[in-house]
């Protein structure tokens, strides 16, 4: 009896020390993440864990036997088709704004072909931390770094973390999100970020003019992440200030479409090889210069013509 009691007394401090050590270690991990360099070490672990979490959404054995998996698959296909058609509708509406912009531009490059991956939302928490969702598509499904997500209601957010089978999308409704936007009717430019009341706040507004109440807010295409013309929301009035009601909240079907970001290569990445003017004049005269310039232009053009390539 006395031996048993002694053993218990010995065991308890060990557990207590283990608890204290665990608390200290966890707090140290928390503190370590405040350093961007150390955070870069921890992020891969988080990505692996997110991959495992996303795999919980796979159909189980019973679903396969009972045929539920096949039915779900068919429903997903039909839902994807509906989403695709809805997207085309919003594209058609925003076409007017795009056309206006194109008319003002000369030598406009054609729109890159629409590519993207439809992914299922596997985790969506309404907790106090950053507003983000986890979707079950990653690099294996063709999601690229910097991709953006949209649903039938409009822009959802952008990919901030990619795993092999999962991606984390930071919602436009998050406080740390910044989206360059413009009014569809007014043409006003601003930066949009999420606020604590599920509405967007417009900042960096021009000194003159303002957004029109009820007009749609679209991405302006500045910043090189979101292409121009994606619906973000609608201007509403709250407490005397103009705010933005996010369109993505209208289309919460549990799926998002991940689209490659609008990355236009910088001129430095594809330098044109111009011939030495002195040697060209000496050898071929003016004809040689023209030929060289044409070659350089033809080399540079196909690359510049693929803005969605990155």
């Amino acid at each position: 009896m006395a031996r048993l009691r002694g053993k218990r007394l010995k065991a308890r401090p060990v557990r207590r020390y283990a608890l204290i050590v665990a608390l200290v270690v966890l707090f140290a991990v928390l503190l370590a993440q405040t350093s961007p360099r150390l955070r870069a070490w921890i992020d891969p672990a988080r990505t692996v864990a997110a991959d495992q979490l996303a795999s919980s959404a796979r159909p189980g054995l019973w679903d396969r036997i009972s045929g539920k998996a096949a039915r779900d698959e068919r429903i997903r296909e039909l839902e994807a088709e509906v989403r695709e058609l809805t997207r085309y509708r919003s594209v058609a509406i925003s076409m007017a704004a795009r056309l206006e912009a194109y008319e003002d531009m000369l030598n406009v490059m054609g729109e890159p072909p629409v590519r993207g991956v439809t992914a299922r939302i596997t985790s969506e928490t309404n907790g106090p931390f950053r507003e983000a969702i986890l979707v079950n598509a990653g690099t294996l499904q063709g999601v690229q770094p910097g991709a953006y997500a949209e649903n039938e209601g409009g822009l959802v957010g952008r990919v901030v973390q990619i795993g092999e089978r999962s991606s984390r999308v930071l919602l436009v409704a998050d406080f740390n999100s910044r989206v360059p936007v413009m009014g569809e009717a007014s043409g006003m430019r601003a930066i949009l970020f999420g606020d604590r009341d599920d509405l967007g706040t417009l900042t960096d507004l021009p000194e003159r003019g303002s957004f029109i109440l009820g007009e749609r807010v679209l991405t302006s295409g500045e910043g090189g992440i979101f292409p121009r013309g994606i619906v973000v929301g609608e201007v509403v009035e709250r407490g005397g200030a103009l705010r933005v009601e996010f369109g993505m909240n209208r289309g919460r079907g549990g799926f998002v479409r991940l689209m490659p970001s609008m990355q236009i290569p910088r001129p430095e990445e594809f330098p044109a090889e111009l011939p030495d003017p002195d040697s060209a004049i000496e050898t071929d005269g003016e004809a040689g210069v023209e030929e060289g310039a044409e070659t350089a232009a033809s080399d540079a053009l196909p690359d510049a013509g693929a803005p969605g390539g990155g």
Partner: protein
Amino acid sequence: MARRRKSERLSAISGIWAETGPTSRFLIGTLIVAAIGLIGLTPKTLFDTELVWPYASLVAAIGWGRSGLGFRPMVVLVVFGLAQDVSAYAPLGCFGFINLAAFGASSLIARSFDRERNPLISTVAPVVLYAVSFVLVWLFASFSGNHLVQLSPLVNVFVVTYLLHILTAPVFDLGRRVGPLAGSMS
């Protein structure tokens, strides 16, 4: 007659539960927390109203803590915490820290003030522990987001978590009692 049969069935269940050992109780509790967590990964709506989902691991932490410190609950709480960090996009270690702190504090309160399982302390202590835990969640979220996050959603989760605690507290009782102090009257 029907009422009698029902009460007999309930007493049979409670009898089986009383016979269940700490390991089985711990496994059942772990499965319940995992099930609640997995179901709550995506938002649930009822009559177009989004449901607030409780932090089941916190209920487990406070329930298990009352039965004293143990290695198995600590490991499971850290694992659940990491899963919560990943799903909520919180800094890694945040929920693990909160779960373990709640577990340790619950154990400390049980050892220091609640050896006799006084009903008043058994009611008040979890409320205090949940309040402190949610303040920690709020602090970590505010530091992580570089702004003060809204309190009202956390208050909603607090209420729902406490409701879950009321419903499931016996499930997270491992059956071990922190014995009365030597020399005390029992």
